[in-house]
């Protein structure tokens, strides 16, 4: 026993180093493999508070571009208003139409922290569970998809950016509905890869890529970007498409968080089907 104590004392530096290194590597590998991160994330009130304060300053630098974007989006939405259409109806009756029920709801939020130069990029938003944000909700900007909510605290939420090598998103070519999985190679923040598209599919540079809507997270048809190149390193019958993102992640400021009313219903159904 005395001998053991003496060894521990003599080599305490090395032993402590190994213990601390194993702890931190375990936390890191666990997080990378399982994508579960309960204690350490930037949705914590104190951490998010610092980001919130600093975003008040940096926000001003992007105002011109944001105004332009909002203006453009307003114009687009105004075009969809009832007043923008000519009324050809003779009988005006307000009917509750059960053919259309509302499926998605939108919460607007401000990006208070964002990065593009890591391998695993995250955003922090200034809305949390008190404002109705839940994990696994979709985040989109006026110009395209942004990410998926990972954790929420009372007033803040942290979001996995699509610029994260851990994330895969189901996407399709708008022209012919062939779908594949969208990933990021960690290199260029304006480009992503669409994988697993069969070889025979017709594709052209400039084709629009949108979300497939298969998951319960992203609504279908949300803009992602356009095809900028194909890569020929095909493994068998598939090839990769290089996509130019329509969202500029460098000056992202205002985004929408999209919730799905039918999420639990769809997930329950899918789970029952798999279990049978």
């Amino acid at each position, binding site marked *: 026993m005395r001998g053991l104590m003496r060894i521990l004392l003599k080599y*305490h*530096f090395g032993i*402590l*180093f190994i213990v*601390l*290194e194993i*702890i*931190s*590597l*375990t*936390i*890191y*590998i*666990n*997080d*990378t493999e399982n994508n579960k*991160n309960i*204690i*350490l*994330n*930037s949705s*914590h009130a104190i*951490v998010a508070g*610092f*980001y919130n304060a*600093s975003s008040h300053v*940096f926000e001003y630098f992007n105002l011109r571009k944001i105004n332009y974007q909002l203006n453009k989006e307003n114009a687009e939405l105004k075009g969809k208003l009832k007043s923008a259409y000519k009324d050809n109806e003779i009988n005006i009756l307000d009917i509750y139409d059960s053919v259309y029920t509302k499926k998605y709801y939108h919460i607007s939020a401000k990006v208070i922290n964002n*990065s*593009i*130069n*890591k*391998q*695993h990029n*995250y955003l922090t938003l200034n809305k949390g569970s008190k404002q109705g944000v839940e994990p696994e909700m979709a985040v989109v900007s006026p110009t395209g998809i942004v990410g998926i909510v990972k954790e929420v605290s009372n007033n803040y939420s*942290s979001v996995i950016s699509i610029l994260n090598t851990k994330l895969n998103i189901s996407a399709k070519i708008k022209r012919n509905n062939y779908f594949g999985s969208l990933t990021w190679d*960690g*290199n*260029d*923040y304006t480009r992503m890869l669409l994988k697993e598209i069969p070889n025979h599919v017709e594709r052209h540079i400039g084709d629009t890529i949108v979300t497939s809507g298969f998951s319960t997270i992203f609504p279908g048809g949300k803009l992602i970007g356009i095809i900028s190149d194909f890569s020929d390193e095909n493994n068998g019958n598939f090839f990769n498409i290089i996509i130019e993102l329509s969202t500029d992640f*460098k000056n992202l400021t205002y985004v929408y968080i999209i919730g799905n009313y039918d999420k639990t219903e769809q997930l329950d159904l899918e789970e029952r089907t798999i279990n049978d």
Partner: protein
Amino acid sequence: MIKIYLRNILRFVILVLFQVLVINNIQITPLLNPLIYTLFILLLPFETPGWLLLIVAFVLGISVDIFTNTPGLHTSATVFISVFRPFVLRSIAPRDGYEAGTFPRLAFYGFNWFFRYTLILVFIHHLFFFILEAFGFSNFLFIISRTLLSSFVSVFLIVLSQYIIYRD
């Protein structure tokens, strides 16, 4: 003595906030990812016991990790270099050793000494960090170029900070 503790705690807070709120907002290219918070480890007094050095490095890493949503990543890299610090300090020691009452700073031991000290530890830190972040060696050229560019900028900022803030 208390003054040294207070000064180090203050430096800890300032460096962590400066790293996550200012340096992490430099997003020009994925190749450029300077990590300057290791300056805290570099500037700890010579007499800091080994166990304290490791624990402080662990806490420093976790603090940055919480901000950047990367649990364990900065922590492993920071603990990893703090184990090298005593050896690096010993191997680049001046002929007469380190005098009592001095700190590992440019003001005491000159540009050459401080530059070598910073370069070795910052380079190890960046290399370990980028390999771990990429989770493998698959894209080695990318890792190496990120390491070289980022450590160059980090070393520049760290050495510069010694001229700006610690002129005594």
